[in-house]
C-alpha cells in the first residue's frame, strides 16, 4: 500500500463515520427550526456563545452538555443491566454502520488507480444496508424488554411488529429496483442513474420506478421509526415507549441514533431513487473532460450564492423590535466577513483546479463536486423527513398494519411483475 492508498482509506472511513455524526447536529437543528417555521414560531434562537448563536446551532451544544451532565440512572427493577446498557449502543452503532456501504462520489481515479468512494468498499451494496439496518430494531426491542416496564415492553413489541410488516414491502421494492439496475452494487446503481432517458430526462430511480420509490420511501419512514410511524415511541399512548426508563446519555444515544438512522435512510433513498451523487445531465466523464470550464463556472456561481446568502442574513438576522446598537447586526457583520473569507478560499482552490485542469486534479474536483451534490440531496431528503413529521399525525395501529399488509405488500408484488415484464420485453 502506498501512502496515497492509506490517506484515501483514512479519508473515506472518516467520511463514513464522521459525516453522519456531524449531521446529527444539523438535523436536530433543522428539525427544531423547521418545526418552528412550519408552525409560525421561531424555534430555539437564544443560546449563544459571546453573542454568536449560529442560527440556533449553539442550542445543540447546550443540549449535549445537559444530557452529558444529567444523572445516569439504571432503575433497580432492571434485571439484565448488561442488555439495558447494550440497547442504546446497538441502536446508535447499527445506524452508523449502515451508512458505510453508500457511495458518496464516483470511483476516483488517481495515477491510474481506482478508489471506490465508500467507507467500506464492498460489492454487497444494498444487501449490506438491508442486513445491517434490520438489526437496528433489535436495539429497540432489547431496550423495551430489558426496561422491565409495561410501556417499554409495548413499545418494543410494536417496533418488532412494525418492522416485520414494513421490511417486506421495503425489500420487495428494492428487488424491483434491482431488476431495473441489474446489480446490487450501489456504485454501479448510481452510475446507471447517470444515463439519460430519451436523451433529456435523467435516468433516476424515481423516473424508472415511481411506484417502487413511493413504497420504499414509505417503508423507510417506518423503518426509521419516524412520524407517521413512530409507534415504538408513541408519547401520547406509551409515555416514551421503548426509552421510557432511559436517562442522560443513554437516552442521548437513542436520540442520536434516530437522527443517524434518518440520515442513513435519506442517503439510501437518494442513492437508489434520486441519482445518488450524480449531478443531473452531467456525467462524470463530461465533468472530468471539461474540468477547466466547470471550475470557472463554479468560480462565478459560488460568490453569487454567497452574495444572496449574505443578503438573506442581513434581512432576517435582526431583532424584530427597536433596539439601540442591535447585537444581531454586529453578529451578521462577523458572519458576512467569515462567509467571504470562506468564499475566497474556495475561489483560490478553484483557481488551482482551473490551472491544473487535467489528470488527478480534475478527478479530485469532480469527486468533491459529487460529494457536495450527494450531501445536498441527502439534506433535502432529510428535510422531507422533518417536513412530513410536522405535517402528519400518527397512524392508528390497525391502520398501520392494514397499510403495510393490504396495500404496500400487494402493490410491491405487482410492481415486481410489471417491472420484470417490461425489462424482459425491452431486452
Amino acid at each position, binding site marked *: 500500500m502506498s501512502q496515497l492508498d492509506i490517506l484515501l482509506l483514512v479519508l473515506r472511513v472518516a467520511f463514513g463515520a464522521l459525516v453522519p455524526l456531524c449531521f446529527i447536529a444539523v438535523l436536530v437543528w433543522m428539525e427544531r427550526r423547521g418545526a418552528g417555521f412550519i408552525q*409560525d414560531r421561531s424555534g430555539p434562537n437564544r443560546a449563544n456563545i459571546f453573542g454568536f448563536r449560529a442560527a440556533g446551532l449553539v442550542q445543540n451544544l447546550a443540549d449535549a452538555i445537559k444530557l452529558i451532565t444529567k444523572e445516569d440512572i439504571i432503575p433497580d427493577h432492571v434485571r439484565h443491566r448488561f442488555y439495558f446498557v447494550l440497547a442504546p449502543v446497538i441502536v446508535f452503532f447499527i445506524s452508523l454502520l449502515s451508512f458505510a456501504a453508500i457511495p458518496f462520489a464516483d470511483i476516483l481515479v488517481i495515477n491510474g488507480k481506482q478508489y471506490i468512494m465508500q467507507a467500506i468498499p464492498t460489492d454487497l451494496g444494498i444487501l449490506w444496508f438491508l442486513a445491517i439496518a434490520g438489526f437496528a430494531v433489535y436495539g429497540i426491542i432489547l431496550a423495551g424488554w430489558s426496561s422491565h416496564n409495561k410501556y417499554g415492553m409495548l413499545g418494543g413489541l410494536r417496533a418488532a411488529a412494525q418492522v416485520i410488516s414494513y421490511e417486506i414491502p421495503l425489500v420487495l421494492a428494492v428487488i424491483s429496483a434491482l431488476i431495473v439496475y441489474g446489480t446490487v452494487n450501489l456504485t454501479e446503481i448510481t452510475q446507471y442513474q447517470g444515463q439519460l432517458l430519451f436523451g433529456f430526462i435523467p435516468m433516476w430511480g424515481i423516473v424508472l420506478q415511481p411506484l417502487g420509490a413511493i413504497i420504499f420511501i414509505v417503508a423507510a419512514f417506518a423503518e426509521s421509526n419516524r412520524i407517521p410511524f413512530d409507534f415504538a415511541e408513541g408519547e401520547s399512548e406509551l409515555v416514551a415507549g421503548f426509552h421510557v426508563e432511559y436517562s442522560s446519555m443513554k437516552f442521548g444515544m437513542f436520540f442520536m441514533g434516530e437522527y443517524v438512522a434518518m440520515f442513513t435512510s435519506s442517503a439510501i433513498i437518494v442513492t437508489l431513487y434520486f441519482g445518488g451523487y450524480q449531478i443531473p445531465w452531467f456525467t462524470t466523464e463530461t465533468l472530468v473532460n471539461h474540468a477547466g470550464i466547470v471550475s470557472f463556472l463554479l468560480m462565478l456561481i459560488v460568490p453569487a450564492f454567497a452574495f444572496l446568502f449574505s443578503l438573506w442574513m442581513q434581512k432576517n438576522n435582526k431583532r424584530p423590535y427597536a433596539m439601540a446598537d442591535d447585537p444581531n447586526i454586529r453578529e451578521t457583520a462577523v458572519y458576512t466577513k467569515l462567509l467571504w473569507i470562506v468564499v475566497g478560499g474556495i475561489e483560490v482552490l478553484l483557481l488551482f483546479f482551473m490551472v491544473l485542469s487535467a489528470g488527478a486534479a480534475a478527478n479530485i474536483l469532480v469527486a468533491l463536486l459529487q460529494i457536495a451534490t450527494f450531501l445536498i440531496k441527502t439534506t433535502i431528503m432529510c428535510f422531507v423527513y422533518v417536513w412530513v413529521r410536522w405535517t402528519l399525525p400518527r397512524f392508528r395501529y390497525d391502520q398501520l398494519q392494514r397499510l403495510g399488509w393490504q396495500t404496500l405488500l400487494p402493490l410491491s408484488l405487482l410492481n415486481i411483475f410489471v417491472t420484470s415484464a417490461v425489462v424482459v420485453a425491452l431486452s
Partner: protein
Amino acid sequence: MSGKAKILERKGKDFYERLYLVEIFKGMAVTFRHFITNFLDNSKLYVRHYPEIKPEITPRWRGRHRLTTHEDGTMKCVACFLCQTNCPANCIMIEAGERFDGRSEKMPVRFEIDLLECIYCGFCVEACPKDAIRMDTGIFSVTGQERESFVMRLDALLATPGAFTEEEYKKGGA
C-alpha cells in the same frame, strides 16, 4: 324535548382519501407554504420576544395584590377580615390593631399574603367593602430564591402602585 340531530358526513372513505398520498401532498403544500414564507422573511412570526417585549396587561387582569390608600396616604383597609374569610386558598393572614388616624377604629398591624398559596382568584378584591385590596398592579411574574420572599407583607403591599388610572380600572368592571 328532543334536540335536532345533525348527521355529519364521515370523511376518509373516498378513493382519493384512501390513497392517502393526495391528501398528504395537500397537507404538505400547506406546511411548506408556511415554512418558506417564514424562511425567506422571519418578521411575521407569531412570536412575542418575551423578555424584551412584555405582554399587554388589561385592567381586568388579576396580577399581584396591593393595598390601596386614601389621598392623604392613610390605608383604606379597616381589618374587617372579609378577604381572609373569603379566601379559598387561605393565603391571607391579618392581625388587627387599634387605629388612631380618625378614619375608623381598626387597622391591620400585620397583613400577609402568601403568594405560593394564592390562586389569584380575585375573591378578596370582590369581598372588600372598602376597595382596599386590588390586583391591578400588572405584575404577572413573581420570582424569588427562597420561600420567605414570596410572603408579601404590609409595607410591600402598600408600596406597590397600581398600573392603571382610576378610570381604566373602573371601566374594567370593578
